[in-house]
């Protein structure tokens, strides 16, 4: 027989999986308070290059990590293969430079903390004081 406490834990775990979210983060001092999904989508598709206030955005991707797959699906409705092919077209046509990469969360945190114009994403809310969440994308 499953103990009530164990059952509660399982239910909470399932609930947290069902309500998983991706957190889009910037530097704490970035003037942007919040962003909508379209604005983040435009940055990750290289359709825009700047934040709303006019500063150039430095956009970070997460290499080969599970959160990347979830982020691309939730934000763009694309799988990784589609996204890689899309960026290959842009980069090798000489239209844009490749996305910056920060595979590990700690690495991303350092990069975003050190650059007021950096933007990236995490699979949990940032606990570091030098980062802030500008968009939460539910899955």
């Amino acid at each position, binding site marked *: 027989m499953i103990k009530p406490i164990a059952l509660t834990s399982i239910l909470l775990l399932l609930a947290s999986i069902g309500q998983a979210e991706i957190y889009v983060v910037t530097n704490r001092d970035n003037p942007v308070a919040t962003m909508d999904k*379209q604005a983040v989508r*435009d940055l990750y*598709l290289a*359709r*825009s*290059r*700047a934040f709303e206030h006019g500063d*150039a955005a430095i956009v970070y991707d997460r290499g*080969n990590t599970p959160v990347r797959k979830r982020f691309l699906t939730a934000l763009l*409705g*694309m*799988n*990784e*293969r*589609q996204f*890689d*092919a*899309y960026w*290959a*077209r842009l*980069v*090798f*046509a*000489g*239209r844009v*430079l*490749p996305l910056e990469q920060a595979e590990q969360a700690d690495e991303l945190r350092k990069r975003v903390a050190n650059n007021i114009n950096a933007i990236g994403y995490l699979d949990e809310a940032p606990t570091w004081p030098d980062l802030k969440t500008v968009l939460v994308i539910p899955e």
Partner: protein
Amino acid sequence: MVKPKVISILVVMEEKAPLPRLSFALYANPLLACILASLCVIVGPVKAEPDLQVSGFGTLGLSVEREENLSFLRDSNQSKDPEKDGSILPDSILGLQLSTRFAADLRATTQFVYRDRPEQGLEEATELAFLGYSPIFDLDLRAGRMAIDMFQLSDYRRVDYANLWIRPPKEVYGWILPSSIDGLDAAYSFARGDYYWRFKLQYGETDALLEAPDGSQAFKNEFENFIVSTLSLETGLWRFRLSYSQADFPVGTSPLVPVLEGISLVPGLIGDEAQSFADRLRGQTSGEVRYWQASAGYDDGTWIADLELAYLSATRTWVPTGKAGYLSIGRRYDNVTAYGVFARFYGDQTPVKGRADWSPLPDITAPDGQVYTAEFIRDVSVASINGPLLEQYTFSLGLRWDVAPKVALKVQWDRTKIEAEQYSLWAHEANRAASDSIVNLYSVAFNFIF
């Protein structure tokens, strides 16, 4: 039998006209911009934090067909060997790209590509070398050597990983000679909601080395005042594109024309035939080509479809002219995509045939001082007129398997029907018998990017 040595002896270019005087120093010497861009990338940024980005792409491909006296080419500007039935050369490629950013608005990119071509060298391998400047975020200005942007896939047509198929449909992409342009371009783009618009203009010059169909000789084709204008729109799952391009050729003279005009004085069938050949070849010496293009694409993650139509007209017949297009439909099943393509090129030039017997004529001394038989002159004339002609269609079926991130394996079967005397997308002997051909091409390719 004497094999006609085609084409390169036929066109003698006059001295190249001087470039238009522009105030842009980098345009005035595009090579300078290319060298500058290369140096900038290699030397690296002057700021403290290194920012050199290295990326690349490649394909190891094998293609096999069994057609006698016809040999597969991916592009008409590859090396040609009519006896070859299977090879890794047409589809295999390796590209290395170096990029750096000096400031938010200034960058440089250089791309070196190793692939099969008539001549290998650093100049040929350098497909991109430009400086890019963005005075505002929506505007990109570039100077140096850029990918030419004539058609939907033109500026990344060699990056096979980025495309669904083993190669872009030959009927639309096999005959586009130049891949890069030396000059300037400007692109203005903006997003409004889910509508992303992009306008682009390119201007410059380029050249392409093209081998005779039997690979015996190569000659350089120059394009001047090359203008490419494009308008594209991406919205939702759709993308659309319209473009118009035109270019001038340096004016040249075929040395065959005066020879044929001399023969045309002979009364009867021989003279009439020589006159008609001279008229066709005289048309080769003026110089303008125009390309129109329209395309639409759809991708919902499961289904992927592309339609592209093009029209090409030219006043010089060494490039194919006519209508071209393809329709491609693919269906994704997790990491595997199955696809089918139908592509066609409708040529608008009629091939000629040598019907008269020229053997009674005496030998002829050509402007180069060599003596040829009249029959040889006739065969060379026919081969020169028919050499660039193109009329064919292809059904293709294939599978793409995304084996791992940034790695794909593809297999493809192409069945191509080629009209007689219109083999310009294939290597062939100049004296190949005039007959329709059906070619089955089997290909496998391994694509990667990094």
